[in-house]
């Protein structure tokens, strides 16, 4: 009877305790790793989601502007004007009356600008301004005119539309991401200071000068070195 009680009080053996501790440590390590990865993944997904949303907002504004811009408006000025970091459209569209213009107005004004200090892109519709949430390291706008690429364009002065407008975006993802881009074998041919843009798209202006699509692609290739044609690139 006493021997039996003594046996019950003996507890775990050293081996059992060590196995238990090892299992617990392994489980905790796995849990910590999982939690860390989950956090990183969530942060990356959130960042990508933000970038996608901002890019879509920017590209939608550009698509709409290029589709229905006017060369010049008597009241609002040039229809397509801008430089490497700013772009302004005057487009024919039904106004809602909440942008400083009358309701049902015939034309509306959309401006796109990159704030280099704040590293944000803003889209201004009349008096309403939206600042896109994704941080952007650089934005480049180029204008394909009949004589080739231009860094600035004014349809009122030119009395015509450009063939199209190219917008390239480099998102601000921190040094780690930039290093990852530089490690990309596809980017080896590029100078370190000019990695390929994260997003790039070419927008044709409806009613712009007629241009052979193959010629446009060729110009795009020439204009961007190793970066492939007018495709959107993520």
């Amino acid at each position: 009877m006493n021997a039996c009680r003594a046996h019950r009080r003996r507890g775990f053996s050293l081996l059992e305790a060590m196995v238990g501790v090892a299992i617990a440590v392994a489980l905790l390590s796995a849990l910590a790793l999982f939690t860390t990865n989950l956090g990183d993944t969530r942060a990356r997904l959130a960042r990508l989601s933000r970038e996608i949303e901002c890019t879509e907002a920017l590209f939608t504004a550009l698509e709409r502007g290029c589709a229905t811009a006017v060369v010049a408006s008597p009241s609002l000025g040039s229809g397509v004007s801008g430089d490497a970091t700013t772009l302004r459209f005057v487009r024919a569209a039904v106004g809602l009356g909440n942008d400083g213009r009358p309701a049902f107005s015939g034309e509306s004004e959309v401006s796109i600008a990159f704030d280099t200090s704040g590293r944000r892109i803003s889209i201004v519709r009349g008096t309403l301004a939206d600042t896109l949430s994704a941080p952007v390291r650089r934005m480049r706008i180029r204008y394909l005119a009949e004589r080739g690429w231009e860094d600035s364009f004014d349809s009122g002065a030119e009395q015509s539309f450009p063939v199209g407008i190219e917008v390239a975006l480099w998102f601000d993802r921190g040094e780690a991401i930039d290093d990852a881009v530089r490690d990309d074998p596809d980017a080896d041919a590029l100078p370190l200071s000019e990695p390929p843009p994260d997003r790039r798209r070419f927008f044709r202006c409806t009613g712009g000068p007629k241009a052979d699509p193959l010629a446009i692609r060729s110009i795009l290739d020439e204009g961007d070195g190793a970066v492939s044609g007018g495709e959107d690139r993520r």
Partner: protein
Amino acid sequence: MRRGFVLIAVLVVIAAAIFVATGAIFAARAASVSARAADLERRLRDAALDGVALAADRLAAQRLALLQGGAPDGEELLTAVPDGPRQIEVRLVPQWDGRPFASESAKLDASVLDHAAIDALVDGAADVSRELLESVLARRPVDSVDALVALADGGDAGIDTEAALEAALGPARLLGDERDENDEGAGAAGASLAPPLIALMTAHGAEPLVDDLGVSRLDLVDAFNESAAGGAAEASLELFDDAEREALQALVKDRNRRKDDGAIVTALVGRGVGLGRVDEILNECTTEPGSHGIPRVDIVRADVRVLAAIEGIGTDAAARIVDLRDTLEDEERRGTSWLVSRRVLSLEDYAAVAGRITHRSALWRFRVESRIVAADERSAALEPEPASVYAFDCIVDVSRAEPRIAYLRDVALLPTARAIARLMRQASGEGERASAPTEAETSALTEEAVPEVADTMFRPTPGFRAPRFDLPTVDATIAAPPSRERTAPIGRDIAAPTSSLPSSSSPRR
């Protein structure tokens, strides 16, 4: 006791978990629906722009027929793009007269609008139509007449925006479900209803100075001047016989005579030239420089109100033109001199209006609308897509070999703008009995007023100010153009209506 406490605690935890999970599910669902709606809008917009190009190509394919007085034809359905189990249909929306294309030359140009013309145009229409036309008269030159409502001085005058919209655009110009609800108005051809102003007036009436083959018309002034100077225009004048040449030369050399199509008619008929030949010469020659001449009205397609608004025609002659134009022979359709041969106008009256009328149209308006529809019965049973429609109003000029998109306007927000205007009108009514509607009132008003667009419409915040229709006025005085001043077309790709255009004085043949 202790068991009961544990049971309640477990139930509370389960309820909280369900609450959180439900919230997360709804948030994810809302994000998903929002993303789907944005993506659908993009696809619809792309499809509608493709439709604009297809419609322009369709007009270009019929260019010669159009320049010879024909009207474009073809199916309303432009294309159908497969979109998963459904498809995106891109259609031409019927204009006021029920046809997919409307002639811009069948409308009175805003640049020639005056009070007498307004009286004729608003015959049988609501008073608000007169107000809108008066506002256009006060704000010329205008780029387009599509934004008539915005031009109206309705902010403080309390204009009924709904009525203004109906008078300006008519139910046939509304979009999607709104149009379906008012389908009895579309295609009614104005038999009993007054047509909307957009069917009566245009800003794109400048006459392309090309003949029925699309070749630039011979500028008689330049041709005779060059010929006198020994220039190459001598060959161009060989298309006239001696009597015609003498008559036209006398016209050109007489500096005191007004030089327009009417003067050509008077000069030629005075020399015994037949009316059929006069039509031919008017088709191939002009006294106006440039690519476009002063606006003219297509008498074959214009509404009786538009015809009556032309100075020199009047109500009786307008009604007679409408009665006779469906009975014309093919030969008569090639010009406008049938007004004399059919005894609608005297020769003197015809000469007075010959420079303001035409028998054809090179500018055609259409609306392209894309919407998602079920491809078959099976897909009709699927969960419906967010209700959406995208549309563009477009005017295409086929006077050039390449069709020119003279006007392109995104009208997808037309229902939303209308809903806001309705909301503001109701809110201003509320404001009369109270200083300002509360947020709760505004929300209730929003849901009650525009349930069909409640998902996408702009919701006013307490700080939002109602839009005011108070565009600054410009000088209403429009000087009549001198006879040799160029008239430029108006269009989205043409910035300055008074800019210089290349001369058309080169020899024709």
